């Protein structure tokens, strides 16, 4: 059982990093959904009158899912670099999530 070795720590660091993405995604979804918006009167355009649940599913399918997969791929690489020098899986996972988001934001900002 390689629980405390680098391999065990790698898995737990990835879990901690995924936990951050889930937490931040859930917080943004809950925060935006809890803000009341004026009742829309014109529902003739497509996607103009979605319920919060429907818009959440739509955003997850079109935007959230692909972004999450991309983040996890980059995180897997960053964690592989960070897990050796850092003794704690929580620290390594948190830092790799931060580094991943910074890299992805920088790449996105540089492209557009």
């Amino acid at each position, binding site marked *: 059982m390689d629980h405390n070795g680098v391999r065990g720590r790698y898995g737990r660091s990835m879990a901690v990093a995924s*936990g*951050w993405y889930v*937490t*931040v995604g*859930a*917080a*943004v979804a*809950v*925060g*935006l959904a*809890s*803000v*009341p*918006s*004026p*009742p829309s009167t014109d529902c003739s355009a497509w996607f103009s009158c979605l319920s919060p649940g429907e818009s959440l599913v739509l955003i997850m399918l079109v935007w959230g899912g692909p972004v999450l997969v991309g983040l996890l791929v980059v995180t897997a690489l960053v964690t592989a670099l960070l897990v050796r020098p850092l003794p*704690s899986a*929580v*620290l390594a996972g*948190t830092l790799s999530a931060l580094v991943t988001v910074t890299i992805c934001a920088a790449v996105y900002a540089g492209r557009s």
Partner: protein
Amino acid sequence: MKRLGLSGLFFVWLYGVPFLLLVGLIRRTSTPYAPTREAAEAFGATTDTLLIVGLLLNALPLIGLHFAGLAGDEGWQRHFRWAIGGMVLLYLLVVLVSRMATGLLIGHTPADDEPAPAVTQCIPRSGGRGCPGG
């Protein structure tokens, strides 16, 4: 049991506090649709509760370090010592955000769409303008 309690405390702090603060800050920076004054005040009160609970729970690493010390758990003591650094960082971030905010971070009531009460009656007042027809 002891390990379960300590890890529960730790992960509630790690994920719960950022969750509450993020939800609170999103609500604080939004402009909600509030048809009445009461609705705006209730929205503001819920936002304040979220932020205050988040800020209070952010002190959990201190409690965790105390209990880990009592339990003599060296591993969790180390975790909570790191967590105190994170706690200080999070408090500093909140202070930074509140310095950027226009107005109060906690205790802010968003604007409401309640129309100003229309004047329907004219009450004659000494020294004031006279009422039409009287």
